[in-house]
């Protein structure tokens, strides 16, 4: 647990384990994290949700109705997103796939 912010630290999530940084494109870990947040937000927009990075240590998920949740990784973010929207956040949903194809999830 972080003594300053009180957030329980977990082990590294598998999605953070593929690369040594800086990567081949010169991105730092923090830049990659921000890029990941931008990408996730394109998907979350379909559900009226948004994600922001907090101190490069965790994420804050927010709904348009003012709900928010602190989530340490993508796995917990999807569980929180589903809880907030009260419906499955399903990557196999044809409407979501079509929206991503059209690029209108902004």
């Amino acid at each position: 647990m972080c003594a300053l912010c009180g957030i329980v630290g977990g082990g590294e999530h598998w999605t953070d384990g593929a690369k040594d940084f800086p990567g081949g494109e010169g991105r730092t870990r923090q830049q990659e994290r921000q890029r990941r947040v931008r990408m996730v937000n394109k998907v979350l927009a379909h559900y009226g949700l948004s994600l922001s990075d907090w101190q490069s240590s965790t994420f804050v998920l927010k709904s348009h109705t003012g709900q928010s949740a602190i989530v340490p990784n993508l796995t917990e973010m999807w569980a929180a997103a589903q809880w907030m929207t009260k419906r499955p956040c399903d990557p196999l949903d044809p409407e979501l796939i079509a929206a991503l194809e059209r690029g209108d999830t902004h």
Partner: protein
Amino acid sequence: MDYASLIPVNIITGFLGSGKTTLLQRMLASPQLADSAVLINEFGEVGLDHHLLQTLDEQTVLLQSGCVCCTIRGDLKTAVRDLFSRRERGEVPPFRRLLIETTGLADPSPIIYTILAEPVIQNHFRLGNVVTTVDAVNCLRQFDQYPETVKQVAVADRLVVTKTDLADPEQTSALVAALRRINPAAPLVKSAEDAIEPNDLLVSDVYQADEKMNEVRRWLAEESTRGAPAGADHGHGHAASRNGVSRHAQDIESFCLTFEGSLDWSAFGIWLTMLLNTHGENVLRVKGLLNVQDLATPVVIHGVQHLIHPLVHLDSWPDDDRRSRVVFIVRGLSRERIEASLAAFNRLGESASRTIGEPPAAPATK
């Protein structure tokens, strides 16, 4: 933490009377397993003579998600923690491997989940190969009556077909064909005909530094022996019906998605975490070799239901093929939908990269 240095846990599963204990007995005679501890669910007819043997009484704790595969088995948690404490105190020999024999009716998922996710256990132990015994005489019938048997086959890293000396050859061939459809990537041995090598069945796995390349080659070889291009064999439905495979087995489909070019790692992570959150119960296995953007060498991904094991980095490619190849074993999910979804998510990386001035890189599915 060096994942490879943790104590490996092998799970021996298989239906009632399929020969789990006999297999265990044969393997424990090997000096290679002399420093192994064994946890078994019940004492069966076949006696095990091993110095570190303990029994389990099933007790499950359902976690908040309510998903059966994400349960911590209380009895197993207590037994493994206790065994480790005794090892640390010097009350039991310093075993270097743990073998767990399940009951015949067990769904192996909660056992796997307990090893991978229980907060204390995951710091000292890692999951090794899951070995499933399959009875050549009765298994096809059991597929129909007991869906657990299908799941036991689907999550296996190694399949051991027993009693082939009691079954007629057509029966065995039909069973092997059914097993291959459910789980194409697991090496298969016939215990009545083949040598039982503990090294091949238990010890050699993707986390052994000197074995991980061979293990990945084995997955790829098993996948390619199916003949048709990966993914063209839809694994269930018409072909399965023709062979009289049960509806439980027909629900399970295995296929391999192959990608030209490199994958955007962030896009892949977003997609797979989302897929497993919604459909993890029905994604029985994911195994793959990934060509990741900006990385010269491949990454091995390996998961069971909601859980992805720590990634493995290979020092080189196992062959000349530089495509990403991901084997899925799923229940009731559409291959086409999975493929379309992953392709759509991959394109997220293009626009995200363009916003910071990078050229797009779009792998095309094949």
